[in-house]
């Protein structure tokens, strides 16, 4: 589709300029990714490089983001993963898709629920550990109280999306 021989479908990644992203990807690790992408399509850029991107470097959730979008779960990304990440993070992506991935980002232990432990981790990332453990506990309790519709003590994707439905400020 483009001159570099990689098959990118611009209609699948919402209005993200795929070629531009490829160059971004290539520039991240020029020694790993060659310009002739077809020769080695499965090449992975390690997490350290991904997390040093300007878009992610200061994000407190960078590790989670990389983990969620990488297929191996360790944050090492192929070009496809990279494109996925950008298409979800782009402002054109629908909110429900974003909500889905946000849920995954907040779900630290990958058990498909945001449990109090996940919440604590989130809180620590958000506040850089400035709250006391007691306060963190209180906030977690409060959050679960507010958003847990089915009273199972943890937030399912349902609960999360329901909450997001009521909060237009999310995930712009």
């Amino acid at each position, binding site marked *: 589709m483009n001159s570099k021989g990689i098959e990118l479908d611009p*209609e*699948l*990644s*919402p*209005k993200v*300029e795929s070629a531009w992203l490829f160059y971004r990807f290539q520039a991240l690790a020029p020694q790993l990714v060659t310009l002739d992408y077809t020769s080695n399509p499965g090449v992975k850029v390690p997490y350290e490089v991904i997390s040093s991107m*300007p*878009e*992610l*470097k*200061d*994000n*407190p*959730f960078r590790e989670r983001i990389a983990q969620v979008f990488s*297929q191996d779960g360790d944050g090492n990304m192929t070009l*496809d*993963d990279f*494109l996925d990440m950008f*298409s979800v*993070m782009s402002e054109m992506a*629908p909110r*429900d*898709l974003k909500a*889905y*991935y946000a849920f*995954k980002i*907040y779900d630290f232990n990958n058990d498909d629920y945001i449990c109090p432990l996940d919440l604590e981790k*989130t*809180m620590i990332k*958000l*506040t*850089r550990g*400035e*709250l006391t453990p007691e*306060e963190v506990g*209180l*906030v977690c309790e*409060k*959050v679960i109280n*507010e*958003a847990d*519709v*089915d*009273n*199972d003590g943890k937030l*399912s*994707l*349902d609960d*999360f*999306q*329901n*909450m997001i*439905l*009521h*909060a*237009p*400020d*999310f*995930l*712009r």
Partner: protein
Amino acid sequence: MTAFYRNQEYEQESDYPDFTNSRVNLDSLNSPDYPYSRNNSNNLKFKDNAKYSSTHNYPNCPDALNSPDYPGAEDYLDNLGFRNHQEYPGSHTNTTFSRSQRTPDYPGPRNSSHHSRSKHSLDSFSFVMIPDYPGAKDYQDSREDPDDPDSGSNAYRSSSKNYPHHPGSLGIPDHMGTKDYLGSRNRNNQNYPGSLGIPNYQGAEDNLGTPDNWGSAYKQNSQNNHDYSYSENPEMGNKGHHSGLFHRTLGSPGRGNRDYPESFQMTSRQPTSLYSMHPVPDRDGEEKLIASLINLPTRDRNKIIRNQPLTMQEKRKIKKKVNMEKQKSANQSIQLNYCTQCLTATALHYRHFKSVTSEFFQSLDVWQRTLKIIGSKFGTSVLSYFSFLTWLLKFNIFSFIVNFSFIIIPQLTDPKPNNLSFTGLELLTGAGSFQQTVLYYGFYTNSTIKHKGSNTSYNMQLAYIFTIGLYLVICFFSLLYSMACSFRNNFINPHVYSRGTAKLVFSWDFTITREKAVKLKQRNLTTELKENLSEIRHENVITPLKQRLSRFCIHLAAWIVSTGVAIACCAAVYFLAFNNMKFLREHKNQAATLLLPFLVCCFNLFVPLFYSSFGLVEKFEIPRHQVLVIIIRNIFLKISIIGILCYYWLNSIAVSHEECWETLIGQDIYRLLMMNFLFTLFDSIFGEFLRRIIGTKLIKSLGVPEFDIARNVLELIYTQTLLWIGIFFAPLLPFIHMITLFIMLNVKRISLMMNCLPPSKVWRASQMMTLFIFLLFFPSFTGVLCVLAITVWRLKPSAQCGPFQGLPSIIHAIYGWIEILSNRPSYLWVVWIYRNLIGSVHFFFILTLIVVIITYLYWQIIEGRKIMIKLLHEQIINEGKDKMFLVEKLLKLQESQKKTNTFPLAQERREQEVSLNNGKSPGQKIRRHGF
């Protein structure tokens, strides 16, 4: 046939009064009339229930009726009790199955049902315990799918059919089935309308891995479908509707709300079924997706694929598969003839062209990049100001284009000499040589512009009034539309999460990328959370009366002072304005005209600063209230100043027998706008810049200034109001405003980057934007409409200049036009429309009446929905409790079973179960227990 079957059963059971009378009873629920008559009376969703009655058509599974009766809370409770009473963790389906299987074997229906239940209870327990109860939630989903009675009943029936082969495998297959059902519905509707049951075995395959079993079940199911021919089913008509709904929900699940208001619950639940818990769907899920995609147009298909939570590789794979399938089916059906090939090729080219052009236009969108940078550094709240600014800018570009093409260009073809010289001061005052240009009303001719040599003519009077009128109408509707959209998106049931700790925790703004901003945001969040916590802690502590009194006094004093200041400002403007004319006659100097705008701008700049200093004394419990109060005070000040000015213009200048009063008003507005622009520049350059220098170099404690969103946005609203008033008196004003807005955008951006910090309070950007658009609509635009209406209907236009010279009032231009038209037979419809619709009081009376009635109806619907939401919310909570209770019970049973692993004891347990099931009022017991 089916009805007969059921009735029979009902009659049989009516022999046992304790069964029929207690609603909680299983069998009485099966009776077709009894529960539903109750439902309908209590139920808000009458229509849905009516649909459900159609599920009676499934004789094999009379208990399927139990599933859809959710919306009525009362019924629901009973039902809950019923379910608890059974102590069947696998929910209805277990009982259903056992009943439907066992009933034929035993002649006595009552005995049989209970007996069979007791027989199966152990099996079901032993199985359901294992998969940690996965179905319960999804099961709920399917139950809450009000538009889709088929799904529930189908799932149930299929599962009940399934059981004979796998008596132990209760619960799971049908739950999984219902979960997947949504995805598969489309396929059924489109490709296999006869065999609705297939996808239910989706999950069964995964969990059980017994393909032969579900194969047979599948057969049975499809047979069933043939037997109870769907074409006679009332739901048949719904199929198209379903597929459409599915399609929409897939594309953007949350938005289903808009189009199907009755199914709000459904849409809020459905996304889960779409994005099932396992992000990578199994092969069959994929196949279903592909099958559902084949028949969609390419664009929708791509959109749906794009919005799947899959990785790029999988998306690509799906797309390829869909294309292959499509080709296959196309090859099978008919060979593509040349024409269709041509068409598809054209369509492809067109799409390619469209994507290329859209990319091109995107690259042209100069502000997008700027906005992105701002968003990344300051977050969405500051971004909202800039997007409002660009929105206004685009709006003004539009109004400029309209005015330019319909008023200014025709006037330019009929030039008049301008013999005044340009001095430079005109840029500020708008007077002097500008007076004789297209900028002002007075320059326009009242004649009909005719081109030499051609017959076409252009009536300037009509062009002027229609252009401005249509522009205002467009403004009105676009404002109304954006306001309504904004309301709908941002005020969806704001009462549910009052405190919003959850929102705070999950509100991380992923757009922010700069380190400083990230740290700041983190700090803000921390303080906000702490505030929130302290509020929670002190919730129960009632502030002492003395403190409350003093706080109230402070608020009162602040309001009195602020209102007083506003009134004083208005009075000052009033006296100055009315003395201004005398003053201007004495001083012929152009610069003297700048006195009034200067004063007004001073008020506008300094009084809001004074207001915000109230924050030092006035303490609000909720920080958002502070913002709201400041906005209300500022808008009051600005709007009353504009009101006084309008009064001055309409009551003093317009009746002053000046040579061309419209031009004078236009000049006044021009001066106000220019002065305001200069003050804004001054404010951002000196205010923010100096403040930063002072804050960072001299007084460190002050720190870097924050970007004050409220004040800046109000400034924009103020200038826009002025512009709307001025557009009648100076048609070229949007052009000038466009330029000033453009400069302002850049200056503000640079100043923001250099000097400012993001606001420290968590700012609910979207709700505030709604408020701002509302303010722009309500006092601002409606006020402008009033002013212009008075000008058009009441005031006498100046006699020597402007397009309406010589008329008793501006509206007489229209009257005259209608008079002329009524003499031409071919235009009589225009006259008719005018006389009967636009000019008729009765028409507007009826219109108003209809609007009021519709509004009232909607109001009532909203009220009903609110109650509904409350009930449903309670229901969800109860479901959760129910679930927890059952899980507990299960665990207990499991333990006890482990302990007593000998058969006779287990038998005893079963007997206990039976005796428990036969209890007199088990529902009540459970209710007491569970709630």
